[in-house]
């Protein structure tokens, strides 16, 4: 696998590389290496970023970058996993490597509260403006119930 050797010699053992049974490649890297790994992948031809998946598993917030390389009739996918801690979660923005991350990073910020430094216009993407500051629905400790029901109506669906 070209990618495995390329990442090994460039980043040494800091990158753990596994291929699961559906031949999807998963890479686990620390947060500060994120930009260089993605830049290396971009040069190696992985120019399509499918999306950024964020999920909160209780202790930390995991971010998975799904990148794909298309070449005549075939394709290779690599999923880069990093994680940030839950309270003031910050991650480097990859806007200059993948311009389409503009919308994905805003969505992860909106629903999980991960601040991407270096992002040009980090605002809420999906929830309306009058939503209180620390309101991130996809976090584990988020108590459900609709904020839409204005206090004067009171009943909560």
């Amino acid at each position, binding site marked *: 696998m070209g990618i495995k050797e390329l990442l090994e010699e460039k980043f040494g053992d800091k990158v753990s590389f596994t291929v699961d049974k559906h031949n999807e490649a998963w890479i686990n890297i620390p947060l500060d290496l994120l930009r260089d790994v993605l830049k290396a992948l971009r040069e190696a031809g992985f120019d399509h970023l499918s999306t950024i998946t964020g999920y909160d598993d209780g202790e930390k917030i995991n971010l998975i970058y799904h990148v794909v390389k298309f070449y005549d009739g075939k394709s290779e996918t690599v999923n880069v996993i990093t994680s940030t801690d839950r309270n003031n979660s910050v991650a480097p923005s990859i806007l200059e490597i993948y311009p389409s991350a503009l919308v994905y990073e805003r969505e992860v910020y909106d629903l999980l509260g991960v601040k991407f430094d270096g992002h040009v216009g980090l605002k809420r993407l999906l*929830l309306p403006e009058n*939503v209180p500051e620390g309101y991130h*629905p996809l976090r584990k400790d*988020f108590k459900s*119930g*609709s904020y*839409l*029901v204005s206090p004067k*109506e009171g009943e909560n*669906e």
Partner: protein
Amino acid sequence: MTILSKLKKWAFKRSLWVFHLNTGSCNGCDIEILDLFTPRHDVERFGIKLVGSPRHADVLVVTGPITGKSLERVKRVYEQMPEPKFVVEVGTCGSTGGLFQGSYNTLGSADKLLPVDAYVIGCPPRPEAIIDAFAKLMEKIEKGG
């Protein structure tokens, strides 16, 4: 029965101008509503016409569970409609919140905000069921809605 209300009843028998408001629907019901105005179902034969602004609409057709961003628009659009106005709720998620009950960003049904006259259950209902709703609405108007 003043002359005015008789005139109103006669006028309504002929035509209902419909305005369609999407409050976050998955556009399954919206496409079925639009199907009404295409050749196959063609509701223009009952005088039902889709208008572009709530200011000249008699009936407000609402679809979708009201989402956060479209909440303030629902009230505003309802207030803009001229007085003899009716609301028809199309789709299960509009009538009772359907699959999106208990979500943090949906309010559920429009009858929490507006007086709704008719519901069409179904996800999405068949266009013929929506024509039924308009027919029932016309009957209700005639009886003195």
